[in-house]
């Protein structure tokens, strides 16, 4: 019995370690299917999308990533070069699926159009290091 419990604990531990390691340093981008990666943001031409995205971001994302999206505690900055270089489709995919092993929840419950609005807002922010003083 004790051996079974030990084996189960070992399997659980190694699985979570593998999950944690597999997604680190932006490895999530490699998981984005090509059809999602190349998706065009339907909000790209909406002049109000950035403002609306800022409202949604403040409501759902700012508590972890900071009101200025520059990161908070262990939660990463969203003004990084990685986010700036990511395509709209890649960020939308990340918002929908989350990175559950790393604490990023899936935001599939948000309507897709609001996720695209957040993407517009994030890509409108100045990149880290290039921020006006």
């Amino acid at each position: 019995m004790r051996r079974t419990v030990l084996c189960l604990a070992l399997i659980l531990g190694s699985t979570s370690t593998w999950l944690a390691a597999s997604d680190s340093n932006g490895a999530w981008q490699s998981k984005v299917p090509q059809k999602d990666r190349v998706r065009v943001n339907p909000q790209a031409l909406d002049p109000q999308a950035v403002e609306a995205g800022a409202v949604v971001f403040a409501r759902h994302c700012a508590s972890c990533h900071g009101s200025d999206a520059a990161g908070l505690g262990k939660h990463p900055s969203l003004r990084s070069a990685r986010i700036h270089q990511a395509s709209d489709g890649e960020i939308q995919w990340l918002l929908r699926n989350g990175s559950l092993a790393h604490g990023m929840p899936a935001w599939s419950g948000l309507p897709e159009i609001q996720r695209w609005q957040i993407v517009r807002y994030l890509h409108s922010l100045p990149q880290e290091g290039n921020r006006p003083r």
Partner: protein
Amino acid sequence: MNLKLICFGTLAWLSAGTPASAQEVPYFVTYSHHMEEPGSLEIGTKMAIGKPRNPGHRFFADSTEFEYGTTAWWTTELYVDVTGTKDESTVFGGFRLENRIRPLMREFWINPVLYFEFEDINGADKSVLEVVGHDAAADFVDDVQQTRQEKKREVEFKLIFSSDVKGWNFSENLIFEKNLNNSPWEFGYALGASRPLRLRASAAACTFCLDNMSTGAELYGGLGDRYTSGLHNTSQYAGPVAQWQIPNGPRFSFETGFGLNSYSLPHIVRIGVAYEFDQIFRRKGGLR
């Protein structure tokens, strides 16, 4: 004095967190695959008000809910139940401890969630957080002082399936419950569908915007037990649900459930209020 200090300290600690709004569905009985955000604590109350046919008395049941996002794929929840019955008394109904786990780390067309619960309640509990087996309106008629003597230590498993399609959420729950006092397994189900009133977010923050409100419907009921499974002699309910999330404020939910057969209560009115404290254990001013 000590109790007052503890209460004050707890309130002060909770109010240090910032309020947040999660992607909640408006259901009272049905669960979706949306988990509590990791590190967030939601404190809520779910009230059920109903009246069985004569000679039953009107009742009011309240479940206070503490929901914590342990990780992004694991949510823990504690319910504390209190039931009041007109012309009788108000009694403690018991507690429930539940865990929900998402086994798959990505979104799929249908997303499964595993649910485990332990309940230590008594027969006077009328919170109707689920309907299983041959639960009936007659269970609500007996005197509270008698029914509270009946101890119910139960384990419950739910298989939750949930999908998000074009702004809609569709959730299906299968319920398996067993009283540890040598009773047979009882079965139940819950189905829900909901949608925000507007999908596109407003460019200005507003309280009464339609994207802060959602509506839908729930259908739930018993499916008998191990020996007599099926819809025969089971309670069945259906009703519309509505929800209003005040930005950076509380969330209000409302449901009017109608009993679909004579075995059910004629109707149950449910009111829910919840408030989410975000990142309650986060260190202020951490490293960036």
